[in-house]
């Protein structure tokens, strides 16, 4: 156990709830791994955007890492930077977001969050519960993962009579979601369901609905599995009957697999796809972590 290894972890900066969860879990697992393996050094670095994440990867490389775990803020722009590291024979684990070419030339391990599934599960749920609902959507930021979720959603509701009234960007931000929802409420006299794609934004959505005292909205579907929303599901809140899981803890999974690969010499390779589980009242307690910041 005295073998010395260094794992570099590059993740996006905590710029909204989900990413803050990522940072939380990355730090948590880093500490845990370093306790388990005294020779192991895990360096966690956060970056606000793709360009600076490319820099961070370079800087980690400079510090002499043996393996890189990366959750790219925007995958395509980072492919080149990741390839640089990979080309030096380092072990690379890619988390969550896949670039357009996602093969062995880019990474050794791919722990995939399933963005299309996140949309699809939400869409299917809505289509099954309220087959002719009129839905408004609040999107995130205009980047590919957001697009993938939208496409997934459209697939989920395909064939049903669910009608999408509008989609606008809420930037994964509570305040912006509040505004967008207020305007939806002004614009549409009748809304059945809101899909807001992210738990952070759901906070703003719920406040806007409450303020307008509108009763036509049957429920809100968000996603990611933040403790607040999971709690609501657990408590049987009418407005939040379900949540779609997209666990920020997946970065920890990747880190653990990577460490295992380094120490046990078991080549951990390939693709692990995490499910976008539907959190319901029945299974909610399994996904409730009260001391996570997210």
């Amino acid at each position, binding site marked *: 156990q005295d073998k010395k290894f260094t794992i570099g972890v590059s993740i996006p900066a905590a710029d909204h*709830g989900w*990413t*803050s969860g990522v940072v939380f879990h990355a730090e948590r697992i880093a500490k845990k791994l370093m306790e388990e393996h005294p020779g192991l050094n895990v360096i966690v670095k956060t970056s606000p955007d793709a360009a600076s994440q490319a820099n961070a990867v370079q800087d980690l490389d400079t510090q002499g890492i043996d393996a890189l775990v990366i959750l790219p803020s925007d995958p395509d722009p980072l492919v080149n930077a990741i390839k640089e590291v990979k080309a030096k024979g380092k072990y690379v684990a890619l988390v969550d977001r896949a670039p357009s070419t996602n093969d062995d030339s880019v990474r050794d391990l791919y722990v995939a969050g399933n963005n299309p599934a996140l949309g699809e599960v939400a869409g299917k749920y809505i289509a099954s519960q309220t087959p002719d609902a009129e839905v408004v959507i609040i999107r995130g930021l205009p980047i590919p993962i957001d697009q993938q979720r939208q496409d997934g959603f459209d697939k989920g509701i395909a064939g049903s009579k669910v009608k999408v009234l509008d*989609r606008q960007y809420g930037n994964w931000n*509570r305040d912006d979601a509040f*505004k967008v929802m207020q*305007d939806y409420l002004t614009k549409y006299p009748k809304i059945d369901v809101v899909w807001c794609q992210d738990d952070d934004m759901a906070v703003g959505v719920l406040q806007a609905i409450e303020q307008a005292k509108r009763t036509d909205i049957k429920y809100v579907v968000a996603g990611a599995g933040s403790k607040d929303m999971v709690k609501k599901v657990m408590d049987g809140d009418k407005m939040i009957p379900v949540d779609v899981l997209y666990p920020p803890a997946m970065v920890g999974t990747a880190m653990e697999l990577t460490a295992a690969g380094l120490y046990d010499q078991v080549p951990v390779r390939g693709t692990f796809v995490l499910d976008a589980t539907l959190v319901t009242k029945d299974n909610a307690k399994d996904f409730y972590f009260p001391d996570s910041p997210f």
Partner: protein
Amino acid sequence: MSVNEETREIRRRPWRDIDLRAVAPFAALILLLIVGAMVNPNFIGITNLANVATRCAFIAIIAVGATFVISAGDLDLSVGSMVAFVASLMILLMNSGVIADPTLMLVAAVLFTLVAGALCGLANGLITTVGRIEPFIATLGTMGIYRGLTTWLSQGGAITLRSPDIQTLYRPAYFGSILGVPVPIVVILAVTAVAAFILYRTRYGRHVVAVGSNSDVARYSGIAVNRVRTIAFVIQGLCVAIAVLLYVPRLGSTSATTGILWELQAITAVVVGGTALKGGAGRVWGTICGAFILELVGNIMLLSNFISEYLIGAIQGAIIIIAMLVQRSLVRKS
């Protein structure tokens, strides 16, 4: 020569000039209201306009403070992160439960927030004036500091007001209304009236404008230039604190992303309202008009049915430019 006769004749002219310039933002506002009414009939409904006015409260109040700073020839980029920081402190205090009685606790938290805002402003002011650093850089630095401290306080996540008692007690501060007028609108008007009074009717207000238009002249006139500038930053901090007082009851929580880019919006509101970035003239009422215009543009975009969500940003930018061109042509024609 008959000075009096001349005087009378002349007096009217420049008034027309000045008025038009002050009125221009309001003309742009009216234009927008007309456009909005054409886009969506719900637009001119009381509810919608009240919604818009209410939610422009944060930016409007911050921008009123920015009017002071900008009039004095400075700039404050840290306001957005200051909102996040001060709001976090406020919620943490209320969560700490040091005072058992919710009402007392709320009062203490409000006072604390005002003090915290003023101190943040003071820090900006001192670094800029005593440290003699360009305000752009100084406040960019404190922007990083306040935002970083917020992220650290929240450990990257959200800080949520826990006590339901305080929450119920505090909620009306944003969602309530006084004589049918939503509280935030009342607060905007009150803050602006006080600010206008200070800027136009007090010695300090004169000094602000003098310092902003020529700090040498101000110095030679015995004005304590650094003190005037520092106080402007403190006023900005107080305005941020007031915005926080409205912000916290709305969502009951903050995170490291609270208030991102609000500084840019506040400065834009000030400039759209007719205050020049070079300093030396402040238009407080124009500023809140500017804040309202910005919020309206976003609102119209969302209520319109024919614009792709991808293009909203582009159209928004174009509308701002067009609104300014309309203002310009109005002033020029005078």
